């Protein structure tokens, strides 16, 4: 079994924290893992992505081939669409529905969301609103991780919750619990949709 995941967003939105939690859980589960990241100039407010590959067999390429990603997890709706050619026929898109507009020619929001909704398998939510509502405004990325959890499959939701504990342990119990709560809200939202 393998799971190819593209994480995307805008530089500074925190996609690498999501990758760190999934990576921690995958390592604990004894899976093979490769995770290609973007460092350098793009991190200054540009589009960023990370290719995360999990498998119980040896993984060769650090990059995911076109048409074979099982999952796109995006902190931003237009950035989710950017990697569409990488999505497999049965792949799922899990994304924030709130645009991050830092460019003058950002597409019309309604048209953008309509294109997103025309895809066969999409889970979307205003994760920033959800994070604020649960009292953890910095936890939007954990809401998103919760939304993605059922589709990650190769690692269970409980394993991801445990990994959140290990990754955020040095920030204290309160942060761990707040992030787990955010994760659970995302998970519940995904189960409903």
């Amino acid at each position, binding site marked *: 079994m393998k799971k190819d995941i593209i994480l995307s967003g805008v530089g500074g939105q925190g996609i690498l924290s999501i990758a760190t939690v999934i990576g921690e859980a995958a390592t604990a589960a004894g899976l093979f893992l490769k995770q290609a990241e973007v*460092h350098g100039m793009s991190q200054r407010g540009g589009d960023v992505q990370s290719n995360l590959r999990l498998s119980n067999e040896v993984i*060769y390429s650090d990059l995911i081939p*076109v048409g074979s990603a099982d999952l796109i997890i995006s902190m931003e709706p237009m*950035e989710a669409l*950017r990697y569409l*050619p990488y999505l497999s026929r049965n792949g799922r898109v899990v994304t924030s529905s709130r645009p991050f507009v830092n460019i003058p020619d950002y597409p019309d929001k309604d048209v953008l969301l309509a294109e997103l909704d025309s895809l066969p398998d999409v889970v979307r939510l205003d994760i920033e609103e959800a994070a604020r509502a649960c009292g953890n405004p910095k936890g939007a990325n954990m809401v998103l991780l919760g939304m993605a959890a059922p589709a990650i499959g190769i690692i269970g939701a409980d394993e991801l919750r445990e990994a959140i504990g290990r990754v955020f342990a040095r920030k204290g119990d309160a942060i761990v619990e707040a992030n787990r709560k955010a994760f659970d809200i995302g998970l519940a939202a995904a189960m409903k949709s």
Partner: protein
Amino acid sequence: MSEKRLLLGDEAVALGALHAGLSGVYAYPGTPSTEVTEFIQTHAPEVRSRWCTNEKTAMEAALGMSYAGKRALVCMKHVGMNVCADAFVNSAVTGVKGGLVVLAADDPSMHSSQNEQDSRFYAQFAMVPVFEPSDQQEAYDMIREAFAFSEEMGLPVLFRMVTRLAHSRAAVQTGEATGQNALDPAADRGWVLLPAIARRQYLKLIDKQPRLLEASEGTPHNILEGTGSRGVIACGIGYNYVKEAGVQDITLLKVSQYPLPEAQIKALAARCSSILVVEDGQPVVEQGVKALLGAGYPVEGRLTHKLPRTGELTPDNVAAALGVPASRAFGSAQNLAPRPPQLCPGCGHRDVYAALNQVAAEYPGARIFGDIGCYTLGALPPFSALASCVDMGASITMAKGAADAGLCPAIAVIGDSTFTHSGMTGLLDAVNDKSNITVIISDNLTTAMTGGQDSAGTSKFEAICLGLGVEPEHVRVVVPLPANMPEITRIIREEIEYKGVSVIIPRRECMQTLRRHKK
């Protein structure tokens, strides 16, 4: 202690070097090489690791440490090889004592660079071996071997990485650490490259070549696998993409150590009817294989457009070259706009460009020559301020040359770290020539582009400019804030009106490091 760790390619190199008994790393920050030195700075306080002023000072200091008998690592991005080339090429002629490994991180596709030059050409030119790992485990293992091989051969080893390996994580099995070498300085005259000695040393270097070739033929990192009728040579991470494609009818030669294993290539050619060369970067191996096998043997690769002539390898372009059809389910989205990187909100460079654009609009002939750093983003909207960006330090010297030709006003914008890297010497030329230029040293107190490393000249810029001979009344310091716009524009105007060398230093801390310092 042997353990399994999840590491970036760069971190695997750093840890391998530490476990090989490294005594010092010498480096200037540059994507995608920066994390090697940062890892050593964080994990090994006993190893010398402070950032150097540029790649040439780094290479020379590392050669000095090697002379003293200890193991040294030099790290840079590919274009850094141009800066240290003099020392690098000559270090092959002097030879080395303690193991000396030069890590060059190439950036095919120019993710964060201004060209995609291939560092393997430098190794050919200098006649030194290249180690090019295919994955994170090999990066860890091969850097350890590189130090031993460097000492065995008495030569520096070029360790070639590419962006996708440098910045990708995977689990790495580590081994036992060995201790540092004892101080044991070289005592022979081979280090004094006077012509008579250099000629002898050069012959020694030539004499070492057959042993380098023999090592390439024998290493477990260069292996022949499969029995198919199509021949493939895959270098470094190219190997992963060939394996990913999963084709069965090929015989595959993996190459991770150079000079090219000629006997293995001839064996491959004899077994197969053609050879496809899969290498990230420029067609170094493709050219070498063509030369080795002669014009009659079909060799394909980037030169024959079987693979794209430019840009990095991907699993997709390699699969296509191997004849595997793509399985694309979705086309590109309709509602998509490019999102280029931009200067951070509140960044002082923004205020510098706002002021410069305002004043430059008053002078129809004005040109602003840019340099390498975050502030290169001033070339993009909304500022669109820059006429050029070529290499580290070129803002000052290009402004000088343009001013010599009569262009006026000629303005240079350079960052603090880039100024000490390669801008200072050009400023001395301008002072000696009394060139009519206005230099803006936009000082954010850090090397920001690569993530906020210490900058070599912090708190020394006024003294450096005065020491180089800029008139004291034409070294001006301002604080780049919107509230100070009237003062900044007035000072820029005054210094443009002065017919000689002026330096304006807008100084305010980088927003990224400020946020980190506040935590």
